[in-house]
């Protein structure tokens, strides 16, 4: 296995090449553009034998791979922020049609004001459609998760689209060492997509997505629901299998960092998780028993893992990079529902619009949370606060 320094976007493109996809649709948006540009280079040079379709909008980008995937092809597309929102309608068509499309979402704030930097609002806004949503925390993981996405999504027990989210710039444009497996090993681990029992092709006709009885709509959603439940199991299985095959650590739905003897648990997702882990390390040196649970997947939500982790500590701190306005942070809302009031939860909203969050920021947030709990100030079951140190009184 050779080690190569790659940008997040390039690493995703490299994974797409190794996955030997058949059809790629492309529409540019910062900070995602480099992914589809790299793939265009690969197709041009003959390194990837795929049909590369340039379209006029993100809505069409997803529509093109929708059709291709329905005909049995392995497909890929990528987008970000406003581009993802422009796909919104198609996201539901794809999910209810049970097509294992893989899409990279390079997370970026939604305007106004115009902002190209990362927060998680774009990816988390579409969480109810029926897509599996993963969050990478390093360039290498963006590579790994893209390959895993095909195995998970195409698994007969799942058949759902998968979104691989990576933070704009902090992962997409950051270069880090990636342990690249041999292409032949990947081809063996990820064989071509299983042929569909039916095929959309010239000469054969049947209808897809026609008007149906109300009960069929509800049944379809129930099938997606059950597939999501099974996806938890399949993600665990695929993660372990991948780790064994390509010498990686075996995190599946959640990566646990020093949770074994932790009394306080920090929950978050994405590229900034490493900064929070470094903060937890510093705090441990100062005697604070802190652990971190990093969510690798937000959908399906790792309820079992989190319930177990959260109910074995004194209090949980969820640090969110996306908000459900009028309620709380998106992950915090899910976690509170999962733990059903059995543990005190504090919620911090931070890093919106790409506001830089380093280990020192996490250290001050986590320390404040532990001290608040120990002084008895966290007496209710949850709080949401906004971390904005540049604003007086926050």
């Amino acid at each position, binding site marked *: 296995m050779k080690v190569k320094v790659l940008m997040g976007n390039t690493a995703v493109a490299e994974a797409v090449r190794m996955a030997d996809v058949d059809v790629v649709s492309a529409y540019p948006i910062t900070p995602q553009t480099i992914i589809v540009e790299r793939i265009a280079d690969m197709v041009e040079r003959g390194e990837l034998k795929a049909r590369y379709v340039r379209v006029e909008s993100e809505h069409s980008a997803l529509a093109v791979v929708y059709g291709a995937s329905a005909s049995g092809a392995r497909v890929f597309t990528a987008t970000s922020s406003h581009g993802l929102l422009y796909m919104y309608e198609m996201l539901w068509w794809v999910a209810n049609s049970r097509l294992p499309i893989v899409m990279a979402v390079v997370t970026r704030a939604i305007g106004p004001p115009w902002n*190209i930097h990362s927060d998680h609002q774009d990816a988390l806004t579409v969480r109810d459609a029926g897509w599996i949503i993963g969050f990478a925390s390093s360039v290498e993981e963006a590579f790994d998760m893209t390959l895993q996405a095909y195995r998970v999504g195409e698994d007969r027990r799942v058949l759902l689209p998968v979104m691989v989210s990576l933070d704009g710039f902090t992962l997409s444009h*950051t270069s880090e060492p990636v342990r690249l497996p041999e292409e032949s090993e990947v081809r063996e681990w990820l064989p071509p997509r299983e042929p569909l029992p039916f095929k959309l092709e010239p000469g054969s006709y049947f209808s897809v997505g026609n008007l149906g009885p109300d009960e069929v709509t509800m049944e379809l959603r129930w099938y997606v629901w059950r597939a999501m439940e099974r996806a938890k199991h399949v993600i665990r299985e695929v993660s372990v299998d991948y780790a064994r095959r390509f010498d990686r650590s075996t995190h599946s739905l959640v990566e646990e960092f020093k949770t074994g003897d932790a009394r306080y648990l920090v929950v978050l997702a994405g*590229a900034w998780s490493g900064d929070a882990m*470094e903060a937890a390390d510093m705090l441990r040196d100062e005697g604070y028993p802190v652990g971190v649970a990093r969510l690798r997947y937000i959908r399906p939500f790792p309820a079992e893992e989190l319930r177990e982790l959260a109910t074995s500590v004194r209090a949980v701190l969820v640090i969110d990079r996306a908000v459900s306005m009028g309620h709380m942070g998106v992950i915090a809302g899910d976690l509170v529902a999962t733990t059903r009031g059995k543990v005190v939860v504090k919620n911090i909203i931070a890093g919106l619009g790409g506001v830089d969050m*380093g*280990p020192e*920021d996490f250290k001050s947030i986590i320390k404040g949370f532990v001290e608040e709990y120990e002084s008895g100030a966290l007496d209710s079951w949850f709080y949401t606060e906004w971390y904005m140190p540049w604003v007086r009184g926050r």
Partner: protein
Amino acid sequence: MLRELLILSRGGQGGVTASRILASAAALEGRWAQAIPEFGAERRGAIVRSYLRLSDKRILRHSSVRRPEGVVVFSSRILELIDVDKVIPVDSTVLVNSSVRPRLGGRVVYSVDATGIALKLGLVIAGWPVVNTAMASAAARVFNIASLDSIVGALGEYFRGKLLEVNVEAAKIAWGEVA
């Protein structure tokens, strides 16, 4: 041990590529590295910051570098455009692309005439001398990031053919001349 550097360049000078070359060179020596460009509304000519992190083990953090131990400045003109005391910590070591070594308070300053090297080798694109490989090489030596061999090896990941040859030459000259 974690080491953090800041590269200040002007859009189009290749500061981001320089940080990537240095990361690749360090990785060739089995170390962990991160090259992080800071993107905003920069365009050709604007001041661009990029960061380089180095460590013996996997680096977890992905935030920007706030207190660099070393700063690489791609043009001495940049020093006139920024608030030096705010951007360059007083205890940091500075490497500047300049034919004369500038004085920067009490800071330890190195210089290399990367522009001169680029012009001599004809490394000019769209009227701009391309200084990034010379600066990467000089930085590798000043900050003990990687050997010249590793720099040359890393250049092979970024350039091909004739362009690679010229860049390797620029790297070698800069390695020898930086002081």
